[in-house]
């Protein structure tokens, strides 16, 4: 077939941005789109027209990203927007999230699907409260890769010492939170240093440019540590002359991989069977992997419906009606103890009740405020939830897909809360304690 098509089959990176109001996030996004030639002539012309009609002398690149009337009128970004661009090496989906503190929920929304988060810092200000907040959120959401973009290097004379001090302070803080990988890059979004093209002003920097890093950061899943999970979305039964007995369980593999012949268990019922076939969108395959949408066939006729979870028999999660989780409240009305809600986990939605809100987290210093009574919009806290039916939940640390859930208001359908099962941060206690204890002689 066509060489064009084959050459352009590439990989996809989903990433999110976070930054305080004046850190230059819009400029960075604009620069990235502009220098990677992702802004097309008519879009630029529209921005030039709009800027001119507002009496601005130079085109305001923020108008590229602020898509709503209210945003343009107020000159602020209200909501997450998704942007798309490509280089010959990779396709990118950028969740462009507003940086205001009151929009914590937007960063949570953007980061929930991101494999990489960009945290922007003004080189003149260094690590500030907002930076720590963004790092904590990245750790909480367990975004695999974090980029620290130290911006406005042009305003500190491109000094290596300024960058090094900021990078060191941030890395120490983020590692403590359990952020697995941090890459610090000195840039000037306004001048274009190290965004797409290497900077001639910072010879001391030997690392990749911002775009190079985005192009090369690994997006592969390491399956060796994954629990395989398939939430059943839909049962496919053609009941036609050609397929009289076909009964397939359709779903998107949430984690790990499944293989024909494998022994599996269906939760919450606990029924066991073996995989007799896997259809990958009409094509029979022997093995299927995370994020592939598949249809699984089983050897035995057992009762399976939407909401069930298929797992390897040797690696089944426990089911529970009592969930402890860290949540981010995303609705305007508060979440209170005793609140009756719906909980959507995977493909299952069940009734649930908020039994307790043991603490609210202050992101600035990670301190816990005990028994706050309620969580309001953008609050992050610990909750205990009792569900009407047992659910097979994983810890969010093990699986972002089967360890996450949302709470829904049963009255009006509002999405109330984003939830992450289990401990909040990857390594809440320093692991060194045990080793140190060995040295003590009581």
């Amino acid at each position, binding site marked *: *077939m*066509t060489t*064009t*098509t*084959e050459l*352009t*089959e*590439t*990989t*996809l990176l989903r990433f999110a941005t976070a930054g305080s109001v004046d850190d230059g996030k819009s400029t960075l996004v604009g620069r990235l789109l502009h220098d990677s030639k992702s802004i*097309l*002539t*008519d879009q630029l012309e*529209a921005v030039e027209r709009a800027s001119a009609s507002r009496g601005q002398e130079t085109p305001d690149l923020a108008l590229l*990203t602020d*898509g*709503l*009337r*209210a945003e*343009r009128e107020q000159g602020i970004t209200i*909501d*997450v*927007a*998704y942007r*798309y661009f*490509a280089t010959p090496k990779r*396709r990118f989906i950028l969740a462009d999230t507003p940086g205001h503190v009151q929009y914590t*929920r937007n960063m949570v*929304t953007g980061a929930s*699907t991101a494999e990489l988060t960009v945290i922007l810092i003004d080189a003149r200000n260094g690590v500030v409260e907002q930076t720590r907040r963004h790092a904590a959120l990245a750790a909480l959401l367990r975004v695999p890769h974090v980029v620290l973009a130290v911006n406005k290097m042009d305003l500190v004379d491109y000094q290596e010492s300024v960058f090094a001090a900021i990078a060191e302070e941030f890395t120490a803080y983020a590692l403590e939170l359990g952020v697995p990988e941090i890459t610090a890059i000195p840039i000037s979004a306004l001048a274009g240093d190290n965004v797409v093209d290497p900077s001639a002003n910072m010879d001391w920097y030997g690392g990749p440019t911002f775009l190079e890093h985005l192009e090369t950061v*690994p997006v592969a899943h*390491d*399956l*060796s540590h994954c629990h395989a999970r398939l939430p059943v*979305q*839909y049962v*496919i*039964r*053609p009941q*036609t002359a*050609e*397929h009289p007995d076909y009964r397939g369980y*359709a*779903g*998107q593999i949430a984690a790990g*991989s499944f293989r024909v012949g494998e022994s599996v268990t269906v939760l919450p019922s606990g029924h066991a069977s073996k995989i007799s076939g896997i259809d990958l*969108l*009409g*094509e029979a395959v022997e*093995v299927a*992997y995370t994020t*592939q*949408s598949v249809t699984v066939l089983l050897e035995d006729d057992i009762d399976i419906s939407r909401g069930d979870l298929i797992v390897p028999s040797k690696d089944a999660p426990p089911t529970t009606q009592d969930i402890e989780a860290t949540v981010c409240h995303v609705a305007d009305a508060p979440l209170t103890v005793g609140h009756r809600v719906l909980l959507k986990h995977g*493909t299952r939605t069940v009734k649930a009740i908020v039994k307790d809100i043991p603490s609210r987290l202050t992101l600035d210093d990670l301190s816990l405020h005990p028994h706050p009574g309620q969580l309001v919009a953008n609050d992050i806290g610990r909750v205990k939830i009792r569900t009407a039916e047992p659910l097979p939940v994983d810890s969010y640390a093990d699986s972002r*897909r089967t360890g*996450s859930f*949302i709470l829904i208001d049963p009255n*009006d*359908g509002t999405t109330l809360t*984003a939830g992450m099962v289990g401990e909040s941060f990857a390594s809440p206690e320093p692991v060194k304690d045990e080793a140190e204890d060995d040295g003590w002689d009581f």
Partner: protein
Amino acid sequence: MTTTVAKAHGGATDAPYTLSHLDALESEAVHIFREVAGEFERPVILFSGGKDSIVMLHLALKAFAPAAIPFSLLHVDTGHNFPEVLEYRDRAVAAHGLRLHVASVQEYIDRGVLKERPDGTRNPLQTLPLTEKIQAEKFDAVFGGGRRDEEKARAKERVFSLRDEFSQWDPRRQRPELWNLYNGRHAPGEHVRVFPLSNWTELDVWQYIAREGIELPDIYFAHEREVFQRAGMWLTAGEWGGPKADETVEKRQVRYRTVGDMSCTGAVDSDAVTLDDVIAEIAASRLTERGATRADDKMSEAAMEDRKREGYF
């Protein structure tokens, strides 16, 4: 042809692997179709015979294979259609044994409910027939082929977009969308617009069409056509009111990048006769598809947002 990186790794379950971008987008879209099939009573796919809706139909067929698609189709017929596209629509409906609903703009004009605009453009007139059909048929989920890369208001659109009983979109009251946990709860009379191609770009759509060998109406490929120029676009003459006295018809080799109402969908000069040609042409183009060929988006800075608020897709 549909080689994934996973297969290139020999299928070892413990090796790091990743899906190609087209496989990832396809898988996500299929997941969205199946969520809707699992949670809604009466979903429908908006089908115009344009490339995005053709790709949606193809994805839906794959999502439920070997069973039939559990949805019907809905065409908002402006009355100013390209004949090749209507022919394609009817052929697709017959080939897959689907049910087609039609909301007709012409019928509304004939009944005097809608008034023809002086410029002959019928795109803004589609909203009322569409929303009334949704109410009359009690559709609770309406799939649209809209992509976030098309337009800056669409960049703000959710995958599951709640519409009130008047089909209105309120961008300030959207539900946050977390992980892939889509929330389709709605009250009776409300419905959800669903966009399985949200994360696709124009180029992805074309690459996918090429990879899957999907047939398209001929007007997407370069052909000789009698056109005239208006507002920088090549328009096809037709009963909708073009050309005017001062506009001259000439024969040019053109193709269409989008398919919509004839009165406001322009053709572009092109030599692209194969899918490869089209992909090369789009990759090199410095214009977005809407900027190049859609007059309706140029009416004001917020034309799309305003129409979407009223219930447009």
